[in-house]
C-alpha cells in the first residue's frame, strides 16, 4: 500500500464556486478538514479553497457572504492520480508549497483529497523514507 488512492479516507468535501465563503467554512469545520474542492455543475473539480485561503481573504477584507471563488485557487489544479506513488505526491506538494492535492481517477473524475497529514501515517512514512534514501532515477 503506497499509492495515493490508499490514503483517501472519505468522499471529497465539495462546494460550488458561487457558494458564499461561509458555506465553505461550515463544510470545513463540520467535516474537520482543511479544504473543500470546488466543482462545476457536472461535478468536475475546477478549484480548491483551503483554511489558509479563508484567513488570507479575511485579512484582505473579504466578507463571509462573498463568493468562495473570490478567495479560492481556480483552474490549474494540482492533482494526483489514484495510482500515483505517495512520494511523487509529496514532491508535488513541496514543489508547489501546498498542503492538499486533489485526487482524480484515470478518467479525471474527482475521487478525494489528500493532505500532508495523511502522509504521516506509519506505512506512508516508511515508503517516503525509502524513497528519500533510494530516490527514483528522475530525482
Amino acid at each position, binding site marked *: 500500500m503506497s499509492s495515493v488512492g490508499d490514503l483517501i479516507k472519505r468522499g471529497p468535501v465539495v462546494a460550488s464556486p458561487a457558494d458564499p465563503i*461561509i458555506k465553505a*467554512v*461550515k463544510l*470545513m*469545520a*463540520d467535516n*474537520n478538514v*482543511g479544504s473543500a474542492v470546488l466543482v462545476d455543475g457536472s461535478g468536475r473539480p475546477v478549484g480548491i479553497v483551503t*483554511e*489558509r485561503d*479563508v*484567513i*488570507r481573504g*479575511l*485579512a484582505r477584507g473579504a466578507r*463571509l457572504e462573498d463568493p468562495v471563488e473570490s478567495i479560492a485557487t481556480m483552474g490549474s489544479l494540482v492533482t494526483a492520480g489514484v495510482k500515483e506513488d505517495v512520494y511523487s505526491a*509529496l514532491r508535488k*506538494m*513541496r514543489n508547489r508549497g501546498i*498542503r492538499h492535492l486533489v485526487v482524480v481517477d484515470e478518467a479525471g473524475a474527482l475521487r478525494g483529497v489528500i493532505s*500532508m*497529514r495523511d*502522509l*504521516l*501515517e*506509519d506505512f506512508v*512514512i*516508511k515508503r*517516503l*523514507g*525509502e524513497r*528519500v*534514501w533510494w530516490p527514483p532515477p528522475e530525482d
Partner: protein
Amino acid sequence: MVAPAGGLKAGDLVRRPPVTITPQATLLEAVDKLVEHNIGALVVVRPEEPDAALAVISERDVVKALNMRMALSSPVEAFMSPGVISVEASEPVSRAAELMWRYNIRHLVVTKGGRLYGVISIRDLLRPESLKSLCRSQ
C-alpha cells in the same frame, strides 16, 4: 542540514523564533499575524511570561470560530484550543511525528528545558532530512 548521529531532534527542525499572541488580542489580530508571517499557527502567551505557552491557535481554530459566527473582535482566549501538546527540543523527530498523528494536529510546540522554543509543522517533518531520520527509527 546534516543529520547528527542518532538522527534529527525536534529542536533541529525549529527554524525561527515562535510567533506569539496574547489571550486578549482579537481574532482579527490573529488573522493578520498568521498572514503576515505566512504560518498556520500562533502560540498564545501572557505578556508577563512570554516563554510559557498557554495554547496554540491554528488556522483550524480560526475557521471554527468563523463557523460559530464569532465576531472578528472576539478575544483569542474565547476560541483558542486549551492546553498545549509539546515536545522537548532534545527528543527525536519520530516523537514529534507520533504526537502530531495521535492528537490530529499540524503544529507542535517545541520547548527547551520546558520553556517555549519554537513551533514545528507537518511540513517540517516531511522534509527529506526529517524523513531520513523518521525512516531510520522505524
